[in-house]
C-alpha cells in the first residue's frame, strides 16, 4: 500500500503532467473562441460559437466521425472475435500468437500509405483487376480513397485496431476461463450456437466494453489517416478543427477552438453518462 507521502507525490505528478496541460489548453481555447485573446480578436464575442453551433460543418464532421468509428469498430470486433474464438489454439501455442503483434508496429501514417497503394485507382487491387480482365480501364475502378463513404479510412482503421482486439480477446479467453464456461453450458444442454451467443460473446464483450468505448472515441478523433485518405467534405472532426485553426484565414481560428471545446464537451458528456449508468464501469476489477 502506498505511503501518504508517495500518494501526495503521485497526485502532484498527475496534476502537473495531465491536469494542468489539458486544463490550460481548454482555457486558452475558450478565451480564444470568445475573442478575449487572439491576434485579430478585438472584443468579447460569441459569434464563433454561434457559427459552429448552428452551422452544418461541425455537426456533419461529428456525424461522419461517428459513422467511421462505429463501422470500423463493428468490422474490427467481428473479425477479431471470429479469429480469437476460432483460432484460439493457434493464438495460444502457434506462430500466430507471435505474428499477431507484428501489425501493431506500423504507425497510422505508414498504414494509410499502404492502404493508398492498395486501394487507389492506380493501386495494386485496381491493377490486378485490370490485368485479370475484370475492369477495362483503371479509371473504372471504384473510388475507395478520398471517397464520400470513407472506405479507405475505415479499411486502414480496421487494419490498425483489429490485431489489438485479437490480442485482447485471446487474453480474455484465458483469464476469464471461457473454456470452463463453455463446458458448463454444454452440460446444461446448450448447442454450439447458444454457447456462442449466450456465453462466449456476452462475456468477452462485457469484459472488453470499456476498451471498446475508448477505442470508438479514439477512432472518432483520429487525424493522420483521415487527413491522408479522406476528402474535403465530409471531413472527420480532427481534420476539420485543424484546418480551421491552421488555415490562412486567421478569422476562422476562434471557430476552430470553439469546435474543439464542443467536441471535448460532447465526449465528456458521453463518458459521464456511462459512469452514472454504472459507477463500476471504468473500474478494471469490476465484472
Amino acid at each position, binding site marked *: 500500500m502506498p505511503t501518504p507521502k508517495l500518494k501526495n507525490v503521485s497526485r502532484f505528478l498527475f496534476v502537473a503532467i495531465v491536469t494542468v496541460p489539458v486544463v490550460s489548453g481548454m482555457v486558452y481555447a475558450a478565451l480564444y473562441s470568445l475573442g478575449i485573446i487572439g491576434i485579430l480578436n478585438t472584443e468579447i464575442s460569441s459569434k464563433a460559437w454561434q457559427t459552429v453551433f448552428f452551422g452544418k460543418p461541425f455537426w456533419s464532421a461529428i456525424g461522419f466521425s461517428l459513422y467511421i468509428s462505429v463501422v470500423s469498430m463493428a468490422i474490427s470486433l467481428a473479425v477479431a472475435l471470429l479469429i480469437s474464438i476460432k483460432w484460439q489454439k493457434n493464438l495460444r501455442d502457434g506462430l500466430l500468437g507471435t505474428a499477431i503483434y507484428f501489425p501493431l508496429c506500423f504507425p497510422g501514417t505508414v498504414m494509410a500509405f499502404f492502404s493508398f497503394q492498395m486501394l487507389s485507382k492506380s493501386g495494386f487491387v485496381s491493377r490486378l483487376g485490370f490485368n485479370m480482365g475484370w475492369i477495362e480501364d483503371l479509371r473504372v475502378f471504384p473510388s475507395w480513397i478520398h471517397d464520400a463513404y470513407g472506405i479507405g479510412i475505415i479499411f486502414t482503421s480496421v487494419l490498425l485496431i483489429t490485431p489489438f482486439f485479437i490480442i485482447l480477446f485471446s487474453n480474455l479467453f484465458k483469464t476469464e476461463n471461457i473454456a470452463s464456461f463453455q*463446458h*458448463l453450458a454444454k*452440460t*446444461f*444442454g446448450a448447442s454450439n450456437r*447458444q454457447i456462442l451467443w449466450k456465453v462466449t460473446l456476452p462475456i468477452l464483450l*462485457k469484459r472488453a466494453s470499456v476498451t471498446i468505448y475508448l477505442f470508438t472515441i479514439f477512432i472518432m478523433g483520429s487525424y493522420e489517416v483521415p487527413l491522408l485518405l479522406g476528402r474535403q467534405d465530409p471531413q472527420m472532426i480532427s481534420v476539420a478543427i485543424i484546418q480551421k485553426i491552421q488555415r490562412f484565414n486567421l478569422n476562422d481560428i476562434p471557430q476552430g477552438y470553439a469546435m474543439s471545446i464542443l467536441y471535448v464537451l460532447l465526449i465528456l458528456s458521453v463518458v459521464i453518462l456511462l459512469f452514472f449508468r454504472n459507477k463500476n464501469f471504468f473500474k478494471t476489477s469490476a*465484472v
Partner: protein
Amino acid sequence: MMENILEIKNLDKTFGKETVLKNINLSLKKNAVVSLLGASGSGKTTLLKIIAGLEHQNNGEIFLNGKEISNIKPQRRNIVYLYQEALLFPHLNAFENVAFGLRLRKTPEKDVKQKVMQMLEYLGMPNHATKMANQLSGGQRQRISFGRAMIIEPSLLLLDEPFGALDSTTRQKMQELFKELAKTMQLSALFVTHDLKEAIVMGDSIGKIMKGHLKQHSDLREFYEDEESGVKKEVEFWKQFIN
C-alpha cells in the same frame, strides 16, 4: 433392489503415453450420492469429465439409466458437471444464472419466473435475485450454482470439489445444504473431494481412486474396514489425544 442410474464398465483413459484411468468400474444407485476420494492428479476430474462427455475414454462403456451414453454429446446426456468454482456467468444476475438452463430449453417466461423464484426461496436467497456474481460471497455463489444445476432436474449431478475454495465454516454450511437438497430433490450425484471427512459426510457410499484404479465400497462400514482407505489411521491419530 434399487436400480443403478450410472454404470461404468472397464473404462480406460490415457493422455499420450500416460495412463490416467485403468479398468474403472463404478455403479451409482438412483437418488444416492457416491463420494469419490483421491489425491490431486489421481484422475478424479478426468473421470467426471468423461462421464459428462467433456472428455472421451479410450476404452469402456458408460450407461445412464440403462442406456449407453459413451458416444452421446454432452448436451444430450442430461448430466450437469459443477466445477470447484461456482462459475456464475458474469454477464447475468443471480436470477438469470439460475434461469440459464430453463431459457436454453425455451421454457415459457411465466414458468421461468415461478420456478426460479421458488428455487431462490429454497436456497434462502430471494433477496439476492438482482445481484451480479461479484456482489455475492463465495458461499452464495455456490448456492446459486447449485440452484442453476438443480432447476433443470438433471439425471445426474457431478460435483468436482465444489466446496474446495470455501472457508471451513461456509464449507460446513454448504455440506449441510447439499445433504438436505440431495434428500429433498432426490438427487443422484458423484461427489469428488480429496477431504476424507467430507467424503464420509457427503456420500452414501465411497470410492477411492489411487494411481488410476478405482475401488468402490458398498457402504461406509466397508470403507472403514479397508486398510487402504486411511480412515483407521485417522481414527488412531485422534485417539492418541484422548488416551
